[in-house]
């Protein structure tokens, strides 16, 4: 096992098991990490390559896709310089993990839950979806993609979804009118969304209890540098510490 945890420090060196492109610009990376396997749904990991690397001054936050015993999997989309560097990592390479960090989603046992994920935002909600299923919830999943070429739905997502609805921009099924129609048909007790401000704004207008997982550029990941702030009804809040999960009606998008 390559996991070392000292009493004070919760920065963990981990070994990559696989890191492959599953769809254009979407990567699936797995690594050994028994410590992280205790992560709660919605929490994230702050990952760096090779520890102190001056050419990559800050870590990158990734949400957890799936926990399988001692193994953890993330699905990430290439967005900039940092994530591009991650795509170069190969089996056996080391990464350095800080986390799990952040808060968690509220789960209402045995509820009728609706998970709405757009693009990589669907990966953010997968660990939650699985926990919802374990908590006896009826899970409906709306998976929104630009087009079929980036649809990365696998058996894991199918496994926790009692009903799975794929919508795309290609056939206009991802437009807000249709998403709203589906929501009203499901009549969920709780909605969880990620990856689309458009959908989050829609949920702000609707009368359902809704949570959103937010993303922002991050510094320390621990709450000290207040760079990942998002505006809420009660002032700026930190995505890394007060979030990433927020009541959708509390945030100003």
């Amino acid at each position: 096992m390559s996991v070392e945890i000292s009493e004070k420090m919760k920065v963990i060196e981990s070994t990559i098991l696989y890191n492959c492109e599953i769809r254009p610009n979407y990567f699936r990376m797995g690594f050994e990490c028994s410590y992280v396997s205790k992560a709660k749904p919605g929490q994230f990991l702050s990952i760096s390559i090779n520890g102190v690397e001056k050419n990559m001054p800050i870590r990158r936050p990734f949400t957890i896709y799936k926990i399988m015993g001692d193994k953890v999997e993330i699905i990430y989309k290439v967005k900039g310089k940092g994530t591009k560097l991650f795509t170069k990592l190969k089996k056996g390479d080391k990464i350095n993990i800080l986390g799990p960090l952040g808060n968690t989603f509220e789960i209402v046992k045995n509820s009728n839950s609706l998970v709405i994920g757009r693009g990589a935002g669907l990966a953010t909600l997968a660990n939650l979806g699985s926990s919802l299923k374990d908590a006896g919830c009826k899970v409906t999943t709306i998976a929104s993609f630009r087009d079929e070429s980036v649809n990365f739905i696998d058996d894991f997502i199918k496994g926790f979804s009692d009903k799975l609805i794929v919508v795309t921009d290609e056939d206009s099924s991802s437009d807000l009118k249709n998403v709203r129609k589906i929501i009203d048909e499901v009549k969920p007790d709780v909605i969880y969304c990620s990856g689309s401000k458009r959908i989050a704004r829609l949920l702000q207008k609707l009368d359902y209890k809704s949570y959103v997982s937010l993303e922002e550029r991050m510094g320390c990941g621990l709450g000290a540098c207040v760079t990942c702030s998002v505006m809420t009804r009660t002032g700026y809040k930190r995505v890394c510490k007060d979030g990433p999960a927020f009541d959708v009606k509390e945030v100003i998008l």
Partner: protein
Amino acid sequence: MNTSVNIGSLKLRNPIMNASGTFGLDEYDKYIDFSKIGALVAKSVTRNPKQGNRPPRIVEVDSGVLNCVGLQNTGVLDFVENKIPKLRKIDTNIIVSISNHSVEDFKASAQMLDKVDGAAGYEINVSCPNVEEGGKTFGQSSEQTYNVVRTVRDIIKAPIIVKLTPNVTDIVPIAKAAVEAGADGLTVANTYIGMAVDLDTKKPVLGNIIGGLSGAAVKPLTLRLVYNIHKALDIPIVASGGVYTAGDALEYLLVGATAVQVGTANFIKPDIMTDIVEGIKKFMIEKNIEDINDFIGSLIK
């Protein structure tokens, strides 16, 4: 082996402390043993609460980081009531950082802080715009720097360190003004103003358009500032800029810094400061240095 250094009457067990705003008691408690660093510098506090700038507030650039937090804090009253009591409990020097937009607000903040006497020392951040003088940064004028430092000096008896801005044509006269106003030390330096743009959106990346550059990219620039000030003035210098390793810290000590701040590197490894302290000790053993003070400023020209 002696690693302790002095900044005025402030005695540090070793020369390593954090840069203000990159580190915090509550957030880092789980990751680092505070008793192993020379001091903890609190996040800058202003007279009134400040909301800060609109996001995004941070972006990584080549070998560095740009940020535009905008001094978000809950104000000096909240700091005195809720933060100082907690900070007092930890086993290291607490340095309280004060920032403001007018001399009057510096005065009021200093008065409130002096009353509770919770800090081993104070850092005066003069890298903010003076609204009374058309928004020009205090630290870009010798006269304004003098006014701020003198005002705080008249109130606070504890050691005062003035954190200078590097965004000036010549930093030495400003450093001199701070010393003449009664500073016990100088932090050299704050971040370098810069910006980043996005070719796809054609927009600035940061919410505030411009931000401050920190990280490895600034180290040679700040090294030269420390060198220049050390040559010109007999004042303890706290170097701040791109320190990731013991080697980086030692370079600053070599050119004349008495202590060193670690900022951006805390984002990479939350306990990096204790690694740096250990690295300095190892270097001292290897090079047969009995007292770190013998190494400080020992650059051979």
